[in-house]
């Protein structure tokens, strides 16, 4: 579960808040889109959840971790409960697909025997088993994003966070990617939070949408569309 209570974030030297008084909850097993124009604070919320940035005011609770009180040395253990997907995939270019996936488990010192099994299992799940020994640069953008999603699944995370995961993909691959997230949410019961600009796809998916504008939450609708009634945000 993700629980934001009156969260504000102001970057050093900035005049205005990047996120101001944000309060929302994402329950276990939910699928939520976080939408809004550029500079609305979507990525800041993403970074607050991944603990890449500290918050200025309020409180955040994720997967029973109180992020206000989380000590720096405990952050890696918290991050292991998250699966993170980026627009630019962030795969390690010098490692093969299998090594990129295995690396996530090596980090937490899992027995190599289990790692190999889990790599095969996850690659089958995202339909990439035949690309196991390829390097990232030998894959298409869509395939790289699938590997990146597979990596996010490796440690059976409670929450998957995706920051503009379709930003570098064509519409068809974007649709496939969001369908994959939906499948993960439905079959694995994993909570999914997707930060996106994809108006058409958000409308198609018919999921909960939280709308941000100038750092404030201006709309939050179950089974919403990109254009949330009542939201007076810029486009």
């Amino acid at each position, binding site marked *: 579960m993700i629980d934001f209570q009156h969260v504000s974030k102001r970057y050093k030297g900035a005049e205005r808040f990047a996120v101001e008084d944000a309060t929302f909850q994402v329950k276990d097993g939910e699928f939520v889109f976080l939408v809004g124009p550029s500079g609305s604070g979507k990525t800041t919320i993403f970074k607050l959840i*991944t603990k*890449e940035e500290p918050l200025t005011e309020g409180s955040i609770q994720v997967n029973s971790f109180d992020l206000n009180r989380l000590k720096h*040395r405990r952050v890696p253990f918290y*991050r292991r409960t998250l699966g*993170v997907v980026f627009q630019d995939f*962030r795969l390690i270019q*010098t490692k093969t697909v299998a090594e990129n996936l295995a690396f996530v488990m090596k980090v937490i*010192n899992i027995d190599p025997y289990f790692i190999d099994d889990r790599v095969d299992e996850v690659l089958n799940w995202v339909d990439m088993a035949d690309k196991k020994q390829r390097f990232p640069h030998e894959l298409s953008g869509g395939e790289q994003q699938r590997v990146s999603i597979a990596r996010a699944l490796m*440690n059976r995370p409670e929450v998957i966070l995706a920051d503009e995961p379709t930003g570098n993909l064509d519409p068809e691959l974007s649709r496939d990617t969001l369908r994959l997230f939906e499948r993960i949410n439905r079959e694995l019961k994993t909570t999914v939070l997707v930060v996106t600009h994809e108006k058409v796809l958000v409308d198609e998916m018919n999921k909960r949408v939280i709308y941000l504008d100038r750092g404030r939450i201006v709309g939050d609708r179950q089974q919403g569309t990109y254009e949330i009634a009542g939201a007076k945000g810029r486009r």
Partner: protein
Amino acid sequence: MTIYYIREGFRGIRRHLLMFLGSVAVITACLTLTGSFALLAENLDYNIGQLIDENEFVAYLEDGMDEDEAAGMESDILAVDNVRDAIYISSEQAMENYLERLEESDRLFADLPEDLLPARYTVYVENIDRLEETSQQVAALDGVDHVTVSLSVAEGFSSTRKVVVTVAALLLAALLAASLLVIFNTTRLAMQGRMEEIAVMKIVGATNGFVRGPFVVEGAVMGLVSGGLACALERGFYEVFQQIIESYQLADLFYVIPFRQVRTIVFAVYLGGGLFIGIFGSVAAIRRLLKV
């Protein structure tokens, strides 16, 4: 986990070989430069030290003292604080030495009595800075008539040594600081290319220790290779230096400490210094990247 760090460390070296070699070249150059200067300063200090060690004062004994009494004064003089050695010179020996130093001595001074010059002790001191105080203590002993001491020469050597040591220490510190800065920046530059890899490690939950591990191995290898190369270079440079001193026939003026005498310390300092710099440089360079 250690095997993983070692394997990844060597993989990192292979993948970023040019950067690794660049860092090794910089560390080797800095170590050799700093080490050469330190060795030069050590040689200079040693030579000045030798000159100071030769410094002495003369204690003249009272007239009428017989040989046994005069020779017996040695223990009294040696008992004075800061006296390192005291060598007895009888009246006859003093005259002999004196005549040897004069031209045409046979003709002009042949008839002088043998015991014309007083018996004396040449007294060597431990600490040149306390020469005056020590000579006064010796002068106050029963049986000592007076002492002669060249304080200006002693003070000159002492001051020169202090200046040399201070200047050498300052230059060495500046050279060391500059070397560390260059090494740190080179290593940091080398690590910039790894930013993305480190960011991925951090976001998937790697602890700082886990991220650091392979970099420590890389840094250690980098440091040891640099230290080894610097040792070999230093040995070569030292031999060339020795040959230059000998070829210009300066060996009597400037004694070069044989390399075998400093070999162990040079190897230990270079390898230890290289290891420290390599590990410290790598770890410090990625410190900022670990804050994510």
